[in-house]
């Protein structure tokens, strides 16, 4: 199968904005890159349920409780869509979960930070989802059909996530002294990790080359990060939140905000597993996955029994 002719044909299709579908020819590198990226994306959605889940039982009103629950449920759903997209590439969900547990597969660093006060729920929705959306909107045009379709559905559903987060922040900035302090505290803790979500600077990003050529990735880390900063600064100012970066200022020449340098040591430390919650997040997932094993086994056993019974009836 593998020859230059098919590779050329494949690249031609990509270059003319064609989509690649599961049964189409694709270079092994493309498949591998997609599996890595989509499964990491799926794991991020699923692990991302945990920090917000930390506040479901303490949500301060019936409305807030329902919104938060619905939002976290969406994240689970999005994980599911993405696992399914990855499965079209010949990897099973079981294998992906195994890779997550063994540490072979990663998930977004951002979820290794703790959600410490109620305003963190606002900050996660506004900043973390806000950053994710910038990336995901761009991924709607990704070249792999199932991934692109999953992203379209996800973007549609996520449109309320960022708004609900910003609403919480605005409400708290309009509230008591303690509420304002909570909001600023959350802002201080989430701002930098949110910027890190876009990954290393373009000059230091190891995967970008192929991913751009194959149109899996449509815009560079720095471009996306800048988009996020540009739209978020005004939103922060509007409700009286201070961006925890003294170097943030509008640059007339570039027509973008300049910002201070990101602490890449922290980024790499958290990726290597030494963030505040890495172990906790993984332990949680492993614990409940293992605790659910008897349920999955029972359902599978029940199905087998039932099939046997049906066979007996049919004779």
């Amino acid at each position, binding site marked *: 199968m593998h020859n230059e002719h098919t590779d050329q044909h494949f690249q031609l299709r990509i270059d003319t904005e064609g989509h690649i579908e599961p049964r189409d020819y694709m270079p092994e590198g493309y498949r591998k890159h997609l599996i890595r990226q989509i499964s990491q994306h799926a794991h991020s959605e699923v692990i991302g349920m945990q920090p917000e889940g930390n506040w479901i039982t303490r949500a301060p009103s019936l409305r807030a409780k329902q919104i938060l629950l619905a939002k976290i449920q969406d994240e689970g759903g999005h994980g599911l869509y993405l696992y399914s997209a990855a499965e079209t590439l010949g990897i099973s969900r079981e294998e992906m979960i195994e890779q997550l547990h063994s540490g072979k597969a990663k998930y977004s660093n951002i979820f290794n930070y703790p959600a410490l006060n109620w305003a963190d729920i606002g900050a996660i929705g506004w900043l973390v989802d806000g950053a994710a959306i910038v990336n995901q909107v761009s991924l709607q045009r990704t070249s792999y059909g199932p991934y692109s379709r999953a992203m379209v559905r996800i973007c549609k559903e996520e449109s309320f996530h960022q708004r609900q987060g910003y609403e919480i922040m605005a409400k708290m900035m309009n509230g008591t002294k303690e*509420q304002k302090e909570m909001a600023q505290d959350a802002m201080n803790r989430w701002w930098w990790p949110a910027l890190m979500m876009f990954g290393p600077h373009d000059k230091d990003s190891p995967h970008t080359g192929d991913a751009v050529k194959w149109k899996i990735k449509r815009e560079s880390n720095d471009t996306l990060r800048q988009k996020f900063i540009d739209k978020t600064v005004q939103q922060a100012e509007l409700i009286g939140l201070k961006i925890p970066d003294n170097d943030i200022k509008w640059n007339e020449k570039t027509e973008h905000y300049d910002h201070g340098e990101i602490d890449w040591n922290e980024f790499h430390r958290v990726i290597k597993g030494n963030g505040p919650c890495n172990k906790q997040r993984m332990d949680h997932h492993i614990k409940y996955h293992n605790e659910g094993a008897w349920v999955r086994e029972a359902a599978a056993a029940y199905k087998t029994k039932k099939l046997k019974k049906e066979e007996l009836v049919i004779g």
Partner: protein
Amino acid sequence: METKNELYKYCLRLGDDALILGHRLSELCSKAPFLEEDLALTNISLDMIGRAQAFLKYASELSDNFITEDDIAYRRPENEYYNHLITEQPNGDFAHTIVRQFFVSVFEYHFFEALTKSKDKSLAAIASKTVKEVKYHMEHATDWVVRLGDGTEESHRRMQIAIEDLWMYTGEFFEMDYVDDILLSAGIAVDKSLIKEKWMKEIIKPLEEATLILPAYTHMQTGSKKGIHTECLGHILSEMQYLQRAYPDAKW
């Protein structure tokens, strides 16, 4: 309205059932045996918290908006909560979660079906919406009862333990007190004595199919109608009401 006080209390009972069990299910978010089931349990939880909001809002209206539904949910002490004891029981393993949901949902299905005929228009309206939701909860739980009861040896064993543990809280479903009696004679409340037989019939069938049996004991726990609970509720409320109580002047 002469029955206003009773109706208020009736709303609290119905709202509290939904709120407390909805809360319990919400604790399970990200902890289900697999992803699809996580979404399913969250859907049930969302239905229940939405229902709680409807009943507590109606209670708020009955108080002439003296207090909001959030005040009712977040500022009320434990002994003024009237949810059935079964709804506050811990999630335990998945067998406990399912058996609890199974007992409750089968009861609720028949209860709300009857409540749709209430002379109180607001109660009847909430009941009509609820009965559709609960029918699904009942089906979901019933299917799992059969799968797990008739699955593996281990799942059967766990289900049997869950039934033993939770059976003692099912007697409360059918208790009637002065609130029920007064509202029943006004054509507003449901006669729960009529539901017991249907409930029993409906739970026995899947249990038999699942090769599960009901416990030998007959003693039933009681107390929620008077605001006397198991030790579980205090912990639920101290968590749920934390922000509202720690920052009483804040609006959320």
